[in-house]
């Protein structure tokens, strides 16, 4: 086994570390802990978080890449050479030597069950008829699918079979949720016994949490279980499973939504605070910078930058070892460009707020005590800006996910080989003209995207409601 580290993988895990660190610091401050509890006191926010963390976990699972070596080599470390034989047995031999992610381990059957061409969801035969030579001469026939419904003796049993399997999945997901509930309940009871009884704590809507969790687990188990027997969301033109593509696209969507904020945040914070705090010529320069960047239409700037980058990558094709690395570089570059074009709004907001805060008495007092500029920024200004930063981050996320689809459609998004909802839509667009229409690729790309964006929008509404004093 050889680990393959892509740049975006590394950054996503780094971001997770930042999250964990941020969560720990929230737990230490009673003030922000109270605010977060308030955010989660909404049933909708609770459910949205469950959905968002599912997407995020799938993206994380898809961000650990490795290759399985067909033969043991001596250069491997002890751990890798220990794991390799197990993986070799577990992973289908056809996938040895290919770059896989942890998510691919669980969906090998979807990678391998490639049909010849289009097939509808739950279909047992191909979508279009093909010409077959039989003893009666030439005939138009719908050929049966190679991988779907092979376990059925009779094609008519499909309805019954799906119902039975769905019930299995429901029962199983019920037990999984129950197990999580019991473990969680144990910790809650422990926390309840040892709590500080002088502090009154509003209960969180755990019922909605578990309802959402049960739904998510059920959908996942159902999809996973049935995908072994059918193409649940059909197959595309070259016979690839649409469910697999939609799930692989989650990583790209989450990457663009999250990592872009990681890129723009330091820029916006440093420049916004410096402009607001130091004023004078620094302020002038920074204002000039963001007005200039802002006055270029966003899509055009992104398009221009991506075009230039594309022509550079084309002339220097020797920079990258594999197509994955190249596609990953392009994704990273897109994220950088999106970050550079989107920091201006937050920067302007932070500048205005810093200007306001630096007029307040306690900052004047701190100055009078002889505190340096950087300590004032760190202790007094930064904490008072955090709510703005947070609101901007959650608000931007859904817009970025939607933007990815549009950019990929325009041809300046992610690499055509990277699985993404935009690429799926772009490819499926031409199928609209077919008669009868092939709708499932489009529908599942839009569906997966819609659920993510809706959850993000609902959550950001709640965050804004709690943290933004003007929202009431």
């Amino acid at each position, binding site marked *: 086994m050889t680990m393959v580290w892509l740049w975006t993988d590394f950054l996503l895990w780094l971001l997770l570390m930042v999250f964990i660190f941020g969560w720990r610091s929230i737990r230490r401050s009673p003030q922000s802990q109270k605010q977060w509890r308030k955010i989660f006191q909404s049933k909708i926010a609770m459910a949205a978080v469950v959905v968002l963390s599912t997407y995020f976990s799938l993206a994380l699972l898809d961000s650990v890449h490795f290759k399985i070596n067909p033969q043991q080599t001596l250069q491997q470390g002890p751990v890798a050479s220990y794991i390799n034989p197990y993986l070799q047995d577990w992973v289908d031999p056809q996938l040895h030597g290919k770059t896989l992610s942890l998510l691919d381990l669980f969906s090998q059957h979807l990678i391998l069950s490639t049909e010849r061409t289009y097939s509808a969801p739950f279909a047992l035969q191909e979508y279009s008829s093909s010409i077959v030579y039989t003893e009666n001469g030439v005939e138009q026939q719908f050929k049966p699918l190679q991988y779907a419904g092979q376990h059925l003796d009779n094609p008519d049993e499909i309805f019954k079979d799906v119902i039975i399997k769905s019930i299995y999945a429901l029962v199983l997901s019920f037990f999984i949720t129950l197990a999580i509930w019991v473990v969680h309940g144990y910790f809650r009871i422990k926390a309840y016994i040892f709590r500080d009884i002088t502090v009154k704590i509003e209960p969180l809507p755990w019922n909605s949490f578990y309802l959402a969790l049960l739904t998510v687990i059920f959908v996942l188990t159902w999809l996973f279980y049935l995908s072994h027997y059918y193409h649940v969301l059909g197959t595309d033109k070259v016979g690839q499973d649409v469910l697999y593509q939609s799930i692989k696209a989650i990583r790209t969507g989450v990457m663009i939504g999250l990592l872009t904020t990681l890129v723009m945040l330091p820029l916006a914070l440093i420049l916004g605070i410096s402009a607001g705090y130091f004023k004078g010529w620094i302020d002038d320069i920074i204002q000039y910078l963001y007005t200039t960047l802002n006055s270029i239409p966003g899509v055009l700037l992104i398009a221009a930058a991506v075009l230039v980058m594309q022509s550079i990558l084309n*002339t220097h094709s020797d920079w990258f070892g594999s197509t994955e690395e190249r596609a990953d570089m392009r994704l990273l570059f897109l994220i950088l460009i999106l970050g550079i074009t989107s920091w201006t709004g937050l920067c302007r907001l932070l500048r205005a707020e810093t200007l306001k805060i630096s007029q307040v008495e306690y900052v004047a007092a701190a100055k009078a005590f002889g505190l340096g500029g950087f300590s004032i920024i760190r202790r007094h200004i930064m904490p008072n800006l955090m709510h703005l930063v947070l609101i901007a981050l959650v608000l931007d996320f859904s817009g970025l996910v939607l933007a990815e689809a549009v950019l990929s459609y325009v041809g300046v998004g992610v690499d055509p080989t990277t699985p993404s909802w935009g690429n799926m839509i772009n490819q499926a667009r031409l199928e609209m003209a077919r008669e009868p229409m092939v709708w499932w690729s489009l529908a599942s790309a839009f569906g997966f995207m819609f659920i993510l964006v809706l959850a993000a929008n609902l959550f950001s509404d709640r965050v804004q409601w709690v943290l933004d004093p003007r929202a009431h």
Partner: protein
Amino acid sequence: MFAYIVRRVLYAVPILIGVNFITFALFFMVNTPDDMARAQLGAKQTTPEMIAAWKQERGYDKPLFINLEAEGIAQITDTLFTQESIKLFKFDFGQSDAGRQISADIYERMWPSLAIALPTFILGLFTAISVALLVVLFRGTVLDTATMMLAVTIMSISGLFYIIAGQVLFSKLWHWVPISGYQPGVEGIKFLILPILIGVFAGLGTGIRWYRSIFLEEMNKDYIRTARAKGLDEIKVLFRHVLRNGMLPILTGVVVVIPTLFMGSLIMESFFGIPGLGSYTIDAINAQDFGIVKAMVFIGSVLYILGLVLTDISYTIFDPRVKLS
């Protein structure tokens, strides 16, 4: 007033130079003229002579910023950067790769873009403000909650979905309007209806929420309470006071957009086959025609800055408290 406008326009000059520098850096420094020549001539059999000839033909053979061979002021003016900038500021965009005059193309294609963008914008504004007023009138009721849920849902669906679904339903299944195409004049309305309606609907979610929050903020102010205390009924409060005073923040958002309308929408125009500036740009992007993209970036920023100046001017007209100085 006149002096103010002049000053604002002068203030725009350094910003335009900055924009120009960014596009220049992107198109000539990151992607050097040598790279462009190689890409244009084909990768394999390009000799240094061919590249030099291509560059000379385009005027790309000058140094980027400082021409050491020239004398005096020409050290700065006889460079690629200055030459390109002067051309842009004269709105002389040169020729596209297809050999057509870009300025002429832009003039020709702005009308179809306007034909789509202007009605979409006006209808969208009108619908969103009306719904927002209605929701504010019935705030706190089921209607309010339901509309806001609907607005979030509309916002969360990709714009591409509305276009595709609209085309499938109205054109392909029901044959109400043609799928795509364009025709100038009254005859062309049948081509415009669907893109306009889709454009209005897709923007409705964000619009309603935005205007509702503006009106609600206005609702909480003291003078509204006074008006109510005087016994003014709710509808009069809404239309006489809230709507009028809410116009100011609405204006800020609206005026900036007006000049950029003629840039058209990349996605809408390319889906509906409308020969406007949006589809012009998207075709240029796909054909990697840098000249057109550069021209559109410049025009876009000029229009944006124009929008900012117009916003300031419109403030003075609508709000007597704001004085320009």
